C-alpha cells in the first residue's frame, strides 16, 4: 500500500521546470488575441440584440439556461451595464477591448494571474453567448485558460517574475499541473481516436476525402486531391491509430518523440489543408506544453530518499533544446 501511494505521488508530483507553463501561457494568449481579432468586424453583430447578426444572443442564452442559469454569458455584462446606465454597444466594445488587453497581458506575463482570470471569464461569456457559432477551438481555448487560472503562475518568461524577483515556483507543483494537462490531452486523443475508429469511412479513406472537400474546409481543389486518392486510406487509418495510440505511446521513452512529432505534423497538416489555423495552433500549444521540452517520464520508481533523473530518460528533443534554453536538465525527485 505504501509502495502504491509512493508510486502515485511519484506519478502525480514529478519535479518539473516551468517551461511548459510559459509555452501554454504564450500559446493561449495568442489564441485569445486571434479570437478577438478574427471576430473584430462581427463582434457587435454577434452579441447585440439590435444589430443585424447571424444569430441572436438571447436565443443562445435561453438554450444555455436549459443547462444552468449560472453559466456566465454576455447578457450578464449587458444587464450590469444597463443597471449602471451604460448602453449595450458600449458594454460590448469595452468587453472586446478588455479581452484584448487581458490577452496581451497574458502574452507578456504582466499581472499573469489576473489577466488569466479576466480572459477566462470574458472568453467564456463570449463563447457561451454564441454557443451555436462555436467549434472545437473555442472549447480548447476555454480549457487552456482554465488551466492557466489555476496553474502556478508566473513562469520564468513572464514579466511578473522579473518584476517580483520571487524565488522559483515549487517544481513539484509545476509537475502536478503539467500532469493534469497531460492526462487531459491523453483522454482527448483517446476518445477522439476511438470514435473515429467506429466510423467505416475512417477505414477506407472516405472520411479524409470528405473532410477535405467539405466547405468551408475545401482549401485544396478536389481535382488536385483526387490525384492522391490512393493515400486517403493510409492517411485516415494513420489518424485513427495515431489518436488512439497517443495515450499509450506518448509515455514510452522510445516512442514519445516520434509520436509527438507525427501528431504535431498532423495538426500542421490539418491547419494548412483545411484552413483550421486556430485549431492547429491550440493543439500544437497543448502538445508542446504537455509533452514537449522537459518532459521526462519513467515507470520505474526511484530508490533512496533523493535521486536524479538520468539524462537518458529525457527525450532526444529535450536533450537538444534544454541546454540551449538554459533549463535545468537534471531534475531532483524527492521520495
Amino acid at each position, binding site marked *: 500500500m505504501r509502495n502504491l501511494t509512493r508510486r502515485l505521488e511519484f506519478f502525480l508530483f514529478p519535479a518539473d521546470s516551468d517551461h511548459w507553463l510559459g509555452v501554454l501561457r504564450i500559446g493561449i494568449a495568442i489564441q485569445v488575441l486571434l479570437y478577438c481579432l*478574427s*471576430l473584430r*468586424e*462581427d463582434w457587435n453583430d454577434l452579441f447585440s440584440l439590435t444589430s*443585424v447578426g*447571424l*444569430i*441572436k444572443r438571447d*436565443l443562445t442564452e435561453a438554450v444555455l439556461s*436549459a*443547462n*444552468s*442559469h449560472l*453559466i*456566465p454569458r454576455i447578457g450578464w455584462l449587458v444587464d450590469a451595464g444597463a443597471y449602471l446606465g451604460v448602453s449595450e454597444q458600449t458594454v460590448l466594445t469595452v468587453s472586446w477591448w478588455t479581452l484584448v488587453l487581458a490577452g496581451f497581458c497574458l502574452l507578456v506575463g504582466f499581472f499573469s494571474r489576473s489577466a488569466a482570470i479576466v480572459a*477566462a471569464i470574458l472568453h*467564456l461569456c463570449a463563447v*457561451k453567448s*454564441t454557443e*451555436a*457559432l*462555436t*467549434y472545437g477551438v473555442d*472549447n*480548447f*481555448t*476555454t*480549457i*487552456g*485558460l*482554465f488551466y492557466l487560472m489555476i496553474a502556478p503562475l508566473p513562469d520564468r518568461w513572464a514579466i511578473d517574475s522579473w518584476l517580483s524577483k520571487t524565488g522559483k515556483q515549487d517544481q513539484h507543483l509545476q509537475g502536478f499541473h503539467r500532469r*493534469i494537462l497531460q492526462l*487531459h490531452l491523453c*483522454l*482527448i*486523443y483517446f*476518445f*477522439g481516436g476511438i*470514435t*473515429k*475508429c*467506429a*466510423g*467505416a*469511412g*475512417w477505414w477506407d479513406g*472516405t*472520411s479524409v*476525402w*470528405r473532410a477535405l472537400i*467539405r*466547405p*468551408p474546409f475545401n482549401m485544396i481543389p*478536389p481535382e488536385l486531391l*483526387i490525384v492522391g*486518392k490512393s493515400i*486517403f486510406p493510409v492517411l485516415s487509418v494513420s489518424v485513427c491509430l495515431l489518436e488512439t495510440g497517443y495515450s499509450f505511446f506518448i509515455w514510452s521513452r522510445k516512442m514519445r518523440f516520434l509520436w509527438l512529432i507525427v501528431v504535431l505534423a498532423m495538426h500542421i497538416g490539418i491547419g494548412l489543408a483545411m*484552413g*483550421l489555423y*486556430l485549431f492547429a495552433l491550440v493543439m500544437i500549444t497543448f502538445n508542446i506544453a504537455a509533452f514537449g521540452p522537459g518532459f521526462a517520464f519513467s515507470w520505474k520508481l526511484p530508490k533512496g530518499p533523493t535521486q536524479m533523473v538520468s539524462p537518458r530518460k529525457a527525450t532526444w528533443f529535450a536533450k537538444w533544446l534544454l541546454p540551449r534554453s538554459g533549463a535545468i536538465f537534471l531534475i531532483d525527485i524527492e521520495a
Partner: protein
Amino acid sequence: MACLGLHLFFIFSVCVRDTFSIFATTPTIFSPKLAKYWRGGEESVSAALGQRLAASNPVRNAIAVYLHGAGIEAGYGFFAPNVPNNYKLVFELHYADGRMEYEIPRVSSRATGLRLSGLLDQIADTDYEPLRQMMVKILTYSVWQDHPNVTSIRAVFGIANLPTPSDFAKGEKESYELLYAYDFTFRKADSKQEAP
C-alpha cells in the same frame, strides 16, 4: 489530489457519455442492435453527471457550471465517427413585382464563415422543430434587414451530398437534397412567420 480525481472523473464521464451518444445515434461499424445499450450507457453516465436531477438542483447546477467553466462539457469526437454532411441555406427573396432573387448568409470574414458552418450543422442536428424554425428565422431576419423591400422570404435548408472519390473521378459533382423550407414575412414594426 481529490480535486484532480474529480476533474478527471468529469472529463472521462463526459467523453464516455458523448461517445455512447455518438454510437447510439449515428451509423458505426457496430451492429445497430447495440444502440439500446449505447443509449442505456449514455443515460447512466448522464445520471452520474447529475443531468437527471431537477433543473433547479444545486448539485446539477454546480456540475454544469464547473463543466462549462473548465471547457469540458463536451466530448472530442470531431469529424467522428463520420464527417458530417454539408448543409446549405439559401434564401429566395420575393418582391411585389414578381421578381425573385437568391441570397445566402453573408459573413465578413473566413473565421465567421467557419462558425456559420457549425451553426448550419447545429440547425440540422436540432430535433426540436420550433427551435430549428426560430434559428432559421433569425438568420432570415438578418437578410431581410438588408432587403427590406421584399414581400416574403423563403428559407430553403438543404443538404449537399458529397461525391465519393471514385464518383468524383467519374465526373460526378455534389447533389442537393431539400430538408426544410420556411416562408417568412417581415414588417417594419413587427414580424410574422407563416407555417412552412
